[in-house]
């Protein structure tokens, strides 16, 4: 198992590296209470198959990475990613894929380091704003409220579909809430932006949204924060697109990424 100290924290990293030493680097960023497994079981191998140097890692406090008590704000997460890329010796712009909170981290990374990102794919994510942070915390509180009641967990969207997964998510929420300052850190105003200026995002962007998700109901407002971008709506799906619609996510992601790869190589995209 590969661990790397990045930004002072021991992070669990897995790399799927093709033989081509010039393969463009691509980082997968998972969501809150999740791990890199959400990609490993779904699109990671296919993305590596396109010829990308795929880097997956567990965020601090998650999976097999270290769980320090503090440092769970969006800028801590982007500092961790910067440290990780430095330690791995990855120079030049990276392609980023983020799910949920991971997408929010990717947006912030692209905002802070506009020359550091070649392209951005976000799944069920929005840029970090004060309103976003308030909603994220409401979601965590909602999950926490259900923690002690198995029947309540079973009634949640996820619990009805995959009880084992819902039980684990609630347990992880409890562990993180007790052992870390995650809830306080996420609502910390550092890294949250209320009004994004024109041109704040310079890389190509693909936004993937579940047709029945809460985020979809605010899609116009979110797109309003962004430069012109590609949007794919997966009908009939809620928030957990990687878990429940991996085929649809792959169908959106793979051709889009292949075109970005070919553009970089100077070839004409089909």
């Amino acid at each position: 198992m590969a661990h790397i100290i990045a930004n002072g924290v021991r992070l669990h990293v897995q790399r799927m590296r093709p033989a081509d030493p010039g393969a463009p680097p691509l980082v997968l960023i998972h969501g809150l209470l999740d791990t890199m497994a959400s990609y490993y079981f779904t699109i990671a191998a296919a993305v590596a198959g396109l010829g990308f140097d795929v880097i997956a890692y567990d965020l601090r406090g998650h999976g097999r990475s270290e769980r320090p008590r503090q440092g769970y704000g969006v800028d801590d997460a982007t500092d961790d990613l910067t440290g990780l890329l430095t330690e791995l010796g990855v120079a030049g712009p990276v392609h980023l894929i983020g799910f949920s909170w991971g997408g929010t981290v990717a947006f912030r990374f692209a905002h802070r380091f506009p020359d550091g990102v070649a392209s951005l794919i976000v799944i069920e994510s929005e840029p970090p704003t004060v309103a976003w942070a308030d909603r994220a915390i409401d979601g965590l509180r909602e999950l926490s409220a259900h923690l002690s009641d198995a029947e309540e967990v079973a009634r949640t969207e996820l619990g009805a579909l995959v009880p084992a997964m819902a039980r684990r998510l609630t347990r992880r929420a409890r562990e993180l809430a007790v052992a870390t300052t995650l809830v306080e850190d996420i609502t910390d105003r550092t890294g949250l932006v209320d009004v994004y200026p024109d041109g704040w995002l310079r890389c190509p962007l693909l936004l993937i949204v579940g047709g029945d998700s809460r985020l979809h109901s605010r899609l116009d407002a979110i797109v309003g924060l962004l430069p012109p971008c590609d949007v794919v709506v997966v009908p009939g799906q809620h928030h957990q697109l990687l878990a429940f619609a991996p085929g649809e996510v792959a169908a959106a992601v793979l051709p889009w990424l292949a075109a970005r790869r070919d553009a970089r190589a100077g070839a004409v995209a089909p």
Partner: protein
Amino acid sequence: MTTETVLAEIGDLIREVLDGYDLGAVPITSDTSFDADLAFESIDLVVLGTLLAERYGSGIDLAGFLSARTLSEIITLRVGDLAGYVTARLEHA
């Protein structure tokens, strides 16, 4: 390499992934469920995938193997399913 040999080796790798977690009297057989019997987290499967590739070579692609399965199939995965996959890949290597 027989499925029995692979099964025994995978059992050792599983114990390595769980690293000191006391499995007690739980025997690891082809019928052992990663979720129900071993309380494997999804990230534990990722780590097991790394160990499998180290042991048997990069032809053992657990990410690819799991990508072809639904979430429910991954949750109900049994050790025998994995041993069967590894044995088949080794035979075709």
